[in-house]
């Protein structure tokens, strides 16, 4: 299963390395969202700095929608899902591989965004250990839930409108927990933030486990 996962993740990341869709389109988009937030909110006061954790994670979730859509779109074309299964890959491995690839891409994006908020919003980066742990756990959860829903919506005519409706309410707890943890880390109170990491860990675990169990059933259909 893990070998299959590594294969699929490698394939998706190689695809990204060659097509650079995430780097050339999604990354600029997420920076643009940061700029739009600055237009919408007051840039003179400290509104932006105070709101940084929330704005940061909303931006990550919006970008995650695009990343998930991209990840499932490459499989939906030419019924690649069937090809993957015919290649004898374990459905659980396919799920883990695709989720891992999405997670890696999102993590790269998050590093970029953190630089963005530090630069644009004047946010001082503190509590790095908590920030990293939060980002890794939150991203794992979002990637797992996103990959599940991505394959469900793949190949449908309504996928662009359906995916946000399905995914965003599910990842709402991630937004709450990751924002709170970031607030504490950036506020210099990292010690209190680890409990939120626990919640993110539970979320990531639940959706990864569920995906491993249920992905096969979703693949069989398409």
């Amino acid at each position: 299963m893990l070998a299959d996962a590594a294969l699929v993740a490698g394939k998706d990341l190689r695809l990204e390395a060659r097509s650079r869709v995430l780097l050339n389109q999604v990354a600029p988009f997420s920076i643009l969202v940061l700029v739009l937030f600055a237009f919408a909110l007051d840039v003179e006061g400290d509104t932006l700095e105070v709101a940084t954790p929330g704005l940061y994670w909303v931006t990550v979730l919006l970008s995650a929608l695009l990343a998930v859509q991209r990840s499932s779109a490459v499989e939906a074309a030419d019924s690649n899902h069937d090809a993957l299964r015919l290649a004898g890959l374990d459905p659980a491995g396919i799920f883990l591989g695709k989720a891992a690839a999405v997670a890696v891409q999102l993590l790269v994006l998050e590093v970029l965004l953190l630089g963005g908020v530090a630069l644009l919003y004047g946010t001082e980066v503190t509590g790095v250990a908590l920030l990293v742990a939060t980002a890794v756990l939150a991203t794992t959860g979002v990637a797992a839930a996103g990959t599940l829903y991505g394959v469900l919506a793949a190949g449908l005519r309504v996928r662009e409108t359906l995916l946000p409706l399905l995914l965003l309410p599910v990842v709402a707890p991630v937004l709450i927990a990751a924002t709170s943890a970031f607030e504490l880390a950036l506020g210099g109170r990292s010690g209190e933030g680890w409990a939120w990491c626990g919640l993110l860990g539970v979320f990531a675990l639940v959706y990864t486990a569920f995906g491993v169990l249920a992905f096969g059933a979703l693949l069989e259909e398409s």
Partner: protein
Amino acid sequence: MTTVTTEPTRGVDVDDAPRSTGSPATRALGAVVLALVGLLVLLGLVTSPAERVQGEAVRLFYVHVPTSTVMFLAVGVAALGSIVVLWKGSVFWDLVAAASAEIAVVLTGLSLVTGMLWGRPTWGVYWVWDARLTSTALLFILLLGYQAVRALPADRTTRARRCAVAALITSLNVPIVHYSVDWWRSLHQPATISTLDPKIDDAMLVAFAVGMATYLLGYLWLLIHRFRVGWLEEQVADLGLGDALAERRAEGLADAGGAP
């Protein structure tokens, strides 16, 4: 020259088609629910006293609490049915889960409305970012997502699997959302004060119990009927498919016969 023989169209005998989804048992159940609704109105609005702290607003509890409780039951039944669908591929449980999820949408909506109506006199505003209100609102949207998945064009097995996964994700999310929202709020403001008096008046307790019974049996009644409608829809879909197949086959035979 060819005589086209098609199978006689099956089952569209209008006289055989069911006239309603009712049966003696469900009619009796429906009558009981109606009587209970009448009793609940009487108990909730007339005989039970106003509460000391909340005043008349307490009467909303006789419908709000049963709505929310049965809402969780409906989501639970949908999740249970979905597990069986993924495990055994059962059509029966797929329809039960779908029926229950649909009722859950209505109950969640009602729970939100009655909760907000209760919040207005109690908190002074319709909406506060209270843990329960917020997580119910998210549940409502998740259930709407389930309905959207249900409405996607797909064959029966595909739809059943997709819906089962969506229902399970929704129900997995219920405790996580509740816990996280609760925690999120408790950090910012003290938890909402429990406004129910510990010593509940007997008349209130009776009204409350009748409310629970009304909603539970009402849910059951709706579930049975919605299930039966779903079952008939499946049969009609089958019929349509059978007829279409027969027609295409007849056309094919006619074409083959008519060609030189």
